[in-house]
């Protein structure tokens, strides 16, 4: 059973030298390559890394609008076998993951590590800027991977400015070998944050629903994966319909709806213990679970004699508190990041619209007034925007401010539904359904410009993506 309690410690690279001899100089970029062990391995080809299929890019910034970054294969002081493979191969794979992450952000045009020369260990901290100038790149990423006696990997990650010829950032991560991709994601996050000024998001996971089978008997399974689709795992067997998962803020639990026993109920699944419990015992259906930002409460929707309202319950159980009291359908809900307010949808005006209220249910106020219907509001982790599904002909993903202003639609397809925010509030995933008897659902990602739209690869079809926060 894979655990979510990764060990991924941030260490100061300046302290690393104590371990296995001076791997790098902290201040003198001119430090020469260590003698002997720097001969590049004759074959730089990694042992066929199991890379997931590439995303389908359907909309993109022009290459000229993206910042070009050279990413070299990470060096290793000693080619050592680890449970995750040889460190020399890992160095290339880590650079591959960083390159794919930065590319997927939509902001960067990575070059390498494929097709680039291998950088010896000593050059990691003493970059040969002149040798990369012909690429025209603005930034350079180099790094190393080293296995220690305790069986951990240390991954060092360096970002350089080509024009200035200077270091912009350095980070080091100590991980268990099986978590090597996390070290790569954290390195990509450090680069992305330093260059864009935005908060990180690559080192995060996604819960979603894997779909197979015909439209009238679809099998829907709870599944989880990394933000890039790797480390995919099915959680439920598909015997009962599973829908609408949400990761708890600490990734320990997933709240979702299961049709187990031909009932509609919210369950909280314990990822490590692989066990689950119904969050509230009732003969009424409970659905649409949502976590409070502190993970102590769940919102859920419950239908009583056909009327659906939103309730809040402590995660350990107890008596739910009813937050809406209206003959219309009040459903869903999403907390503001500070936990003081909730955005939700209601058809009390005659059709689905978006409302905000205080976390205790007071001061309910409509904020969407455009044509058509508005559904599935999700408050950005940054607090500045609310993402939604707008239904007016097509189903489209859009954003507006929490007071209902500045509406922008980001997609335009037959049926795009249910946005979920990246941890940094700059990208949105959702699912796109196609028409007809063979209609299918797949997970897509779009940035706030609406320009960078791409499909996130999953082993089978997917829906209901729910992006978790940056991993603890």
């Amino acid at each position, binding site marked *: 059973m894979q655990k979510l309690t990764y060990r991924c410690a941030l260490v100061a690279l300046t302290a690393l030298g104590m371990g296995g001899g001076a791997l790098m100089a902290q201040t003198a970029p001119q430090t020469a390559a260590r003698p002997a062990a720097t001969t590049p391995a004759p074959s730089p080809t990694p042992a066929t890394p199991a890379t997931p299929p590439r995303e389908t890019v359907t909309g993109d910034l022009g290459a000229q609008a993206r910042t070009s970054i050279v990413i070299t294969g990470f060096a290793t002081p000693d080619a050592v076998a680890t449970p995750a493979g040889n460190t020399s191969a890992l160095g290339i794979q880590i650079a591959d993951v960083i390159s794919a992450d930065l590319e997927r952000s939509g902001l960067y045009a990575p070059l390498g590590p494929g097709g680039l020369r291998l950088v010896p260990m000593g050059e990691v901290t003493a970059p040969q800027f002149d040798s990369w100038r012909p690429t025209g790149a603005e930034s350079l990423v180099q790094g190393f991977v080293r296995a220690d006696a305790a069986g951990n990997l240390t991954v060092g990650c360096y970002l350089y400015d080509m024009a200035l010829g200077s270091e912009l950032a350095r980070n080091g991560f100590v991980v268990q070998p099986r978590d090597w991709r996390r070290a790569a994601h954290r390195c990509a996050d450090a680069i992305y944050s330093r260059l864009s000024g935005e908060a990180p998001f690559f080192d995060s996971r996604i819960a979603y629903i894997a779909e197979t089978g*015909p*439209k*009238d*008997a*679809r099998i*829907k399974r709870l599944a989880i994966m990394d933000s890039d689709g790797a480390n995919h795992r099915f959680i439920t067997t598909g015997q009962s*319909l599973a*829908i*609408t998962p949400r990761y708890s803020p600490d990734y320990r639990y997933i709240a979702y709806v299961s049709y187990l026993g*031909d*009932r*509609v109920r919210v369950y909280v699944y314990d990822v490590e213990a692989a066990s689950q419990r119904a969050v509230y015992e009732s003969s009424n*259906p409970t*659905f*649409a679970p949502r976590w409070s930002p502190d993970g102590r409460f769940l919102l859920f*929707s419950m*239908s009583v*004699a*056909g*009327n*659906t309202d939103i309730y809040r319950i402590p995660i350990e159980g107890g008596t739910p508190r009813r937050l809406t009291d209206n003959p219309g*359908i009040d*459903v*869903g809900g999403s907390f503001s990041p500070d936990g003081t307010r909730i955005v939700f*949808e209601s*058809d009390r005006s005659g*059709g*689905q619209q978006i409302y905000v209220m205080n976390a205790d249910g007071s001061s309910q106020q409509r904020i969407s007034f455009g044509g058509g219907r508005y*559904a*599935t509001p999700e408050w950005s982790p940054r607090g500045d925007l609310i993402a939604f*599904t707008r*239904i007016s002909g097509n*189903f489209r993903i859009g954003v507006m401010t929490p007071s209902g202003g500045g509406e922008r639609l980001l997609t335009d397809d037959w*049926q795009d*539904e*249910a946005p979920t925010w990246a941890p940094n509030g700059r990208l949105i995933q959702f699912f796109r*359904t196609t*028409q*007809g*008897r063979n*209609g299918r659902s797949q997970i897509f990602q779009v940035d706030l410009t609406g320009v960078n739209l791409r499909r996130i690869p999953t082993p089978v079809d997917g*829906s*209901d993506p729910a992006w978790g926060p940056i991993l603890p």
Partner: protein
Amino acid sequence: MRTTAKAMLMAFTILAVSGCAGRRAPAELPPVADSGYDANANTGGVANAVVPGSQADFVRSVSSDVIYFDTDRYNIDDIDRAALTSQAEWLRRYPNVRATVEGHADERGTREYNIALGERRANAARNFLISLGVDGARLNVISYGKERPVALGSDESAWAQNRRAVTVTVQ
């Protein structure tokens, strides 16, 4: 009153048999294979012998085990009343049989809203059955939202067939 209801039931049985399912009902009905309910699946005995009180008997006896709704609506109209009246008659005849009313929505709605909408529809049907004297304790409700369409196309005709409440006996 009873005679009127019987007459209506007769009339609608004829309508159903002739394939004219009524004003709001879908223009095209899905092929039998797609219906999800095989009338022959639950005869409980010899082939072609329908056991009284069985699901097959229910489907055969009522004017319709399905009622249909307009987009986002859940009101019970005259055609629905006739179908539910025939269902209630059958259910009163077999007081030991329980039933589940399934609420469904078409695919042109968001997932969670559609579950709430299916709840409304199934409860509307259930409430009408109760008003006709069926003990509410015998009637379960479940909403499938848009998860279990009966017609697979993405057009008005398919959506009209999927906006439905289906009464299924629990055997």
